[in-house]
């Protein structure tokens, strides 16, 4: 059965790109462009993994991470953060449920697939 990945990215064309790559590798995808839409989608059905941009419009990515840590059922959803923020480390984000951190300045399309597979298999 196909695994579902929720892509939370406020830049629509970047979100399109992530979704295309994931779907070509057999994943089912959902997308949200802000934290509120993401929460609504998670309420409708828990995704197997979340790909999250930290620099969301409105409430930022950290706000969504806080929200996910608030509820038992969402705490365990593995989150992959794609960020171009230079001084953010996985050690800082791990307490918020982040399992992988991808540097969007240098990542390649297949990196996102590898990251999703990695968090789903761990």
């Amino acid at each position, binding site marked *: 059965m196909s695994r579902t990945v929720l892509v939370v990215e*406020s830049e629509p064309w970047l979100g399109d790109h992530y979704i295309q790559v994931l779907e070509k590798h057999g994943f089912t995808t959902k997308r949200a462009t802000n934290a509120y839409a993401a929460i609504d989608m998670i309420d409708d059905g828990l995704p197997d993994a979340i790909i999250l941009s930290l620099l969301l419009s409105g409430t*930022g990515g950290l706000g969504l991470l806080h929200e996910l840590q608030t509820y038992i059922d969402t705490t365990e959803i593995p989150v992959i953060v794609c960020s171009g923020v230079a001084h953010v480390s996985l050690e800082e984000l791990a307490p918020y449920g982040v399992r992988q951190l991808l540097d969007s300045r240098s990542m390649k399309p297949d990196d996102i697939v590898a990251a999703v597979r990695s968090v789903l298999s761990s």
Partner: protein
Amino acid sequence: MSGEGSRFKGITGAALDDSTLTMAAAGELLSPLILLRQLGLAISSDNLTEEERRLLGQRLTLTTERALRTASSLGMATATQQPLQLEPINPVTVCQEVIHELAPLFTAHGQNIVLQPRARVPLLVADRHVLQQILLSFGDNALHYGAAGYPIRITISGHGAYVRIGVRDYGPAVPIDVWQRVEERIARRAPAPIATRPTTSVISLIAARRLAELMGSAVGLIRHRDGATFYVDLRVSTQMSLL
């Protein structure tokens, strides 16, 4: 519906020096460059249809143009000796030029931008190029924050001694307190926490404010229940009254 309490409230904030705005500019350009890189990698993939390749090519072009607009706006805002050419300008014409430039980007995002001038709008005094940059920044911001399915409206209205050009979006507005915090942090050179780091468009708006100051005009924000209007107020030209 407008929030009357904030109506006509000008945006105030700390003055920005060149180096801090330049630092902000570097961050500003990061977002489109990240997108350009990913689009470039995607378009070089072997298993694309012709339509997918055409779409990616279009997005590459439009994203590059957007980044160039941002760079131009920030470059002008940081110029210490900005040579201004103040002249009487028909605001309708300038707005039409801005819409013409933004329309391809809006269309590609499934959005629309329209002009809604009042009847008999007076000429205003401005530097045409600087005014265009301000309105382009407002337009880019509206595209970033505007909700799909609602056209962005450029409005022109006379208010006594000045003309107001506004760009109205329907979506989550940039709260005034967020705007002020962003400016204060930049002025203090303090690193912003991740959660409050300004998105691309906010820095462009700060540049717009500085460009407006160069012309002796001001920009402001009106929050609505369902969006926001960013506006610039410009002096009415008295040239016609001298005839």
